[in-house]
């Protein structure tokens, strides 16, 4: 069995040992060092309510280099949640403490709760070494038992929770426990992507279920669990479990302050249906320290205003009542407003690099139930024709005040998978060329619009959601006019989210739009490069065939798609990052050849708002979902300059 | 001008040459009352008779200055002389002035036609009467209520103490009117103006109310201006009578004189139209007045009755007939009485 190093993720890397991390200043150093703690904890320690900091920290705490300098303790980080369901922001701020995590360049996978790990050559078993003496935020020791419990629960049929690889039927996993700090995940087939999954935002499920606490709701460990549930007014233990240790349903994750966690801050005022704010306070048992041995986090409290009103959040930011936020408020349209308000609000704008490859992409439905349309939409020439008929620069000028550049659905320049040809092909605005290709596709132009080869009128209805991205409507209105000019009759159909989702299995939609996920997280989110998952709306029935979900509508894909699927299956089973990268490149090559989805433009830089006295905040942040910005930029080491 | 009523006792209220005009935003003013002279003396009842819309109510309300905003007393005087006080010209007072309010309800009070709608539906009879007493005599509510109860008793309302707490709609028409009267008398006024107080009541109740009024008048010795369009009532209650037609007092005088020897064609027509008891054989058809009452707008410059007068001749339409004395305190406005017109003899 060979040692498998840290480097992984998108960029290929050579094998390094865990100790290499120390050199990077990220791993295990700072032994035999004095530790100090936040003043707010001193009294508690003095009064004996808390053990001294040395006993709270693990044997070898994770030392994290601050971005600028060692900071000062104290302060409250104020931000806002959009309504009661917006816990994604919480996930992005505090809930990024899995076994492993990404470094700040979304480049390497580095130790976190686990201080090291080994991967078997066949990439079927992963052995993790937890830090010694880790503690939950209630002081109980964090052990492999808890991880085993999490896996056990998630794999329980009666419990509707889902946690990616843990209960993935196509590649079942089991856990072997060596001692309280060492365990091994054993997969039936090779699994090359599990480390990425563990390093992503979804990686925390496995370390978020405290066996002592959550066990009491689980019949196996508490015979009376059922009775308890009924007594507390729940139909069955599973619902009670969700309510108390919720990792099945987004909305409930932050509803229970009693649930022990491993994060830098712990929940004190929960996010319930009628909450007007959510409050977190420092976790006195957090396992990270700065180079001088000061226990993280620097900031004492997090205070999140629960607001249904975007305008209120915007005003709060303008009034300097928000210390750091990008979500919801940092929109293109608001930028001038925030730019002008910097003086008065005493904040600054930092820049985000969005992981999205595109502002808007058009997914023609390859699996349309209408034969004629299916044929047309699968016709590459037709798609090329459409692509050339779109004047991307105009859209960029009008909607994004010149920000961004014409772009197809492709990895972003920041990504190791960037391929200029893939990104730029067919993006130039060229009506003649468009006409040429459309005719090549067999369309006949008589009068204002092209018609189907058989002369029947052709109208493409593009479904969109008004609620999600305001600029989509504008972009689509322009595209509509541009395509009309090119002779393609387009109708925009603004529909409700639910229907947007319901329509997919039915296969009657002509086209749906979305943003270009997978611009940086290429391997993790390949939905537009090949029919990878339920979000691959352009080939929903093919992905159904591939994933085995909703078999009733599954259809066998065409060969090139099947080839991509095979490649991705290999990729998923490949342990070696370089090999994975190579496979992904092959998949992308086919994507380039086939050009399935039409993109418009690459989003310009996003921005975030940070109070001027909030330090150690990286000036540029990559922004993704799996890479839950700003969490990978270590908010625990942010501090307020006093 | 010399008062035409007997000098027996000092007049309480003298209406001299009063003209009342109604203005409306987008039409010429309407003169509802052209030239009215009336005199009221304590203990006496003057009946103001005329068809509805002839201006009798307007005249009455003018005395208390209760006319709407758009009505003005454009000419004449209303001289009011309470016993032992000097004369005031009501016509010159501001409607809402203190002086006017001191007169209202206190020296001069009024009874209206519909006892139902003239009483507040949401206040008890008692409250509405107490209020007046408290207002003018500054009594404590308790005492006021005592007075009220005795008043109600006086006007013949059975169980006055309970009735005082009743709401108007809980009483019969007759009782309501009695309550109104009680209210009017609350402050023992010198003058009581009764604006068709019996019209809304059935005949027997009418009779009772009239008797009551007469009795009370004797008790209180007050003057009464009684407005009605019912000659029967006039015969029953009046000392003097003034007949109005379209804003003019065409004839006035002692009720017996006027009824015995009416001198104005209109009065004559009225009286002729009253059915008289007679055996079937002797009965003669009632003769209604021909034509209909013209509206005040197209009233002739001269005698208002011209359009319907059987004897109308040249001057009638053009010139207003003078007020002519035709007997002891009996006057009429008709050209026939001044110029010796051909028909004059026939008429006399």
């Amino acid at each position, binding site marked *: 069995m060979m040692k498998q190093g840290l480097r992984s993720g998108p960029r290929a890397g050579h094998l390094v040992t865990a100790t290499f991390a120390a050199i990077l200043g990220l791993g295990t150093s700072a032994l035999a060092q004095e530790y100090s703690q936040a003043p707010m904890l001193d009294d508690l320690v003095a009064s004996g309510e808390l053990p001294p900091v040395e006993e709270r920290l693990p044997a070898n705490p994770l030392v994290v280099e601050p971005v600028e300098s060692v900071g000062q303790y104290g302060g409250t980080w104020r931000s806002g949640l959009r309504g009661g369901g917006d816990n994604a922001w919480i996930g992005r701020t505090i809930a990024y403490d899995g076994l492993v995590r990404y470094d700040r360049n979304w480049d390497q996978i580095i130790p976190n709760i686990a201080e090291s790990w080994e991967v078997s050559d066949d990439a079927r078993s992963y052995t993790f070494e937890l830090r010694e003496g880790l503690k939950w935020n209630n002081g109980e020791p964090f052990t492999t038992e808890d991880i085993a419990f999490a896996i056990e629960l998630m794999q329980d049929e009666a419990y509707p929770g889902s946690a990616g690889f843990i209960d993935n039927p196509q590649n079942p996993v089991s856990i072997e426990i060596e001692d309280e700090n060492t365990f091994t995940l054993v997969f039936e087939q090779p699994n090359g992507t599990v480390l990425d999954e563990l390093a992503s935002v979804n990686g925390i499920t496995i370390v978020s279920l405290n066996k002592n606490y959550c066990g009491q709701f689980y019949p196996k460990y508490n015979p009376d669990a059922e009775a308890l549930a009924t007594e507390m007014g729940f139909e069955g233990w599973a619902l009670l479990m969700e309510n108390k240790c919720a990792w099945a349903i987004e909305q409930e994750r932050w509803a229970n302050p009693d649930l022990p966690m491993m994060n830098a801050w712990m929940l004190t005022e929960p996010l319930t249906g009628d909450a007007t704010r959510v409050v977190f306070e420092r976790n006195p048992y957090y396992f990270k320290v700065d180079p001088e041995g000061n226990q993280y986090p620097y900031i004492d409290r997090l205070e999140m205003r629960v607001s249904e009103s975007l305008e209120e959040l915007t005003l709060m930011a303008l009034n300097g009542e928000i210390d750091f936020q990008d979500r919801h408020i940092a929109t293109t349209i608001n930028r001038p407003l925030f730019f002008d308000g910097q003086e008065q609000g005493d904040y600054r704008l930092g820049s985000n690099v969005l992981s999205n490859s595109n502002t808007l992409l058009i997914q023609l439905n390859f699996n349309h139930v209408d034969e004629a349309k299916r044929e047309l939409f699968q016709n590459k020439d037709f798609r090329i024709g459409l692509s050339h008929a779109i004047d991307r620069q105009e859209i960029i000028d009008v*909607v994004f005040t010149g920000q961004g550049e014409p772009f197809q659905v492709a990895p972003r320049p920041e990504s190791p998978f960037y391929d200029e040809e893939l990104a730029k092909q067919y993006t130039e605005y060229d009506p003649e060329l468009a006409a040429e290709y459309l005719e090549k596709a067999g369309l006949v132009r008589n009068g204002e619009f092209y018609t189907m080869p058989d002369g029947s009128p052709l109208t493409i209805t593009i479904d969109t959601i008004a609620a999600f991205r305001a600029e989509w409507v504008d972009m689509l209105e322009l595209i509509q006019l541009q395509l009309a000019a090119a002779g393609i009759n387009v109708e925009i159909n*603004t529909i409700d989210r639910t229907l947007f989702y319901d329509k997919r299995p039915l296969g009657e939609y002509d086209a749906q739009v979305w943003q270009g996920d997978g611009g940086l997280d290429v391997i993790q989110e390949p939905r537009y490069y090949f029919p990878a998952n339920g979000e691959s709306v352009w080939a929903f029935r093919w992905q159904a065939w591939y994933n085995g979900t909703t078999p009733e509508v599954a259809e066998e894909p065409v060969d090139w798609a099947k080839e991509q699927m095979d490649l991705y299956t290999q990729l998923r089973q490949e342990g070696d990052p370089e090999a994975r990268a190579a496979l992904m490149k092959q998949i992308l090559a086919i994507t380039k050849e086939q050009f399935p989805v039409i993109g418009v433009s690459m989003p310009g830089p996003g921005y975030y708002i940070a109070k001027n006295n909030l330090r150690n905040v990286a000036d540029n942040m990559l922004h993704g979902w799996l890479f839950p910005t700003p969490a990978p930029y270590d908010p625990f080491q942010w501090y307020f300059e006093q | 001008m010399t008062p035409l009523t007997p000098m027996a006792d000092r007049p309480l209220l003298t209406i001299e040459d009063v003209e009342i005009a109604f203005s409306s935003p987008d039409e010429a003013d309407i003169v509802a009352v052209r030239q009215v002279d009336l005199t009221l003396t304590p203990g006496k009842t003057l009946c103001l008779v005329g068809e509805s819309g002839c201006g009798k109510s307007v005249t009455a309300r003018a005395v208390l200055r209760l006319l709407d905003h758009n009505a003005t007393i454009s000419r004449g005087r209303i001289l009011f002389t309470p016993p032992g006080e000097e004369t005031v010209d009501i016509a010159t007072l501001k409607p809402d002035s203190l002086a006017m309010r001191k007169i209202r309800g206190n020296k001069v009070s009024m009874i209206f036609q519909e006892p139902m709608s003239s009483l507040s539906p949401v206040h008890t009879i008692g409250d509405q009467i107490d209020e007046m007493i408290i207002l003018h005599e500054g009594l404590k509510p308790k005492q006021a209520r005592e007075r009220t109860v005795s008043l109600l008793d006086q006007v013949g309302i059975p169980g006055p103490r309970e009735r005082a707490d009743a709401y108007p709609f809980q009483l019969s028409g007759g009782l309501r009117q009695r309550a109104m009267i009680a209210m009017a008398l609350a402050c023992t006024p010198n003058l009581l103006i009764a604006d068709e107080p019996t019209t809304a009541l059935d005949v027997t109740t009418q009779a009772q109310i009239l008797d009551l009024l007469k009795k009370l008048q004797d008790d209180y010795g007050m003057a009464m201006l009684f407005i009605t369009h019912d*000659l029967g009532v006039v015969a029953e209650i009046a000392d003097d009578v003034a007949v109005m037609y379209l804003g003019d007092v065409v004839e006035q005088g002692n009720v017996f004189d006027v009824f015995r020897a009416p001198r104005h064609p209109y009065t004559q027509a009225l009286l002729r139209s009253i059915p008289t008891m007679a055996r079937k054989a002797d009965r003669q058809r009632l003769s209604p007045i021909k034509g209909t009452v013209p509206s005040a707008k197209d009233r002739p410059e001269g005698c208002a009755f011209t359009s319907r007068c059987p004897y109308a001749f040249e001057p009638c339409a053009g010139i207003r007939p003078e007020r002519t004395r035709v007997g002891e305190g009996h006057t009429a406005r008709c050209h026939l009485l001044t110029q010796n017109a051909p028909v004059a003899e026939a008429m006399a």
Partner: protein
Amino acid sequence: MAIDALTQQPALLRVKRSRESQSALMWRRFRQHHLAVWSLWIVVAFYLVALLAEFLAPLGPGDYNPRYTYAAPQGIHFFSTDENGNWQFGPYVYGYKTEIDPVALRRTFVIDEEVKIPIAFFVPSEPYRLAGFIPMSIKLFGVTEPRAPLYVLGADRLGRDLLSRLIHGTRISLSIGLVGVVMSLFFGVIIGGFSGYYGGWFDGAVQRVIEFIRSLPTIPLWLGLAAALPRDWSSLQIYFAITIILSLVGWTELARVVRGRFLALRTEDFVTAAQLDGASDWRIITKHMVPSFMSHIIAAATLAVPGMILAETALSFLGLGLQAPIVSWGTLMQEAQNIRTLASAPWLLLPGVAVVVVILALNFLGDGLRDAADPHGR
């Protein structure tokens, strides 16, 4: 023995008289309500705009121009001085000086007094169909030189002319009010009419239903219903569906008014007379009763329109009801519903002003009509 009885006045004559004077009186009363008269003209003007939208609007609702996003209003100038400095008439607008601030992501527009863009009347345009059927190819006014900016009321975030969009939006918003009210009238008059005419259990039932509907908070009702609309409907279908939904609540008020009038009229002589003549109920209602309180219905209807218009804006605001690219005052305002607009493009709130003006006008008009409807006080 009363005097009145002696003067001959046939009952019939009296009725006729009062009917005639009724309408005359009403008109007089209405004229007396100056505010109402003014409002009448304003409302008429707005509906004319709605009718002639294509002709009046210099540009189409969707015509955009990347170079003029958030361009400030130009305003119109009528007099200019020629080189030798004497006045001459001829409307014109000033051009813009534009600069782009890449950091703040913003275009700034300065009115450029140097550039005068003359405004011409009856300029030729793309052929269009006025009010949907009259083919035309001229617009009331516009700029002659191509690509010259004309943003009298400023431009929105896509460089679309607010004035034009406002004019086009007028059509949807005002007609929604009208259509909605017409539908409300239909239900209201029929149901209210019968309920008032027959009274009894039917009346009772209708009253309960009305009470019930009125006791429902409307927004949730609309939310639910709007959410239930078939999503594959065209915007036009949605538009009518919305009006129906609005009138589902709207009819109750009208029904109440109508019923009230019926109850009042049922006992009137001329109705009894007609009944004695053996006229059918339908005939009595339509021939005798409805005409006698048409005025009230008109008044009530007028007062119902504003509610509809406001409701449309509210629904659009909540993201239900009409959605862009449909242009209505509601959608226009929804697009202006953010701090950014207030801060840097306040002119985009002009649709709000339009709403206010129309609502005010309609209310005063309705009030005037109602006061006039029965001069003897309602």
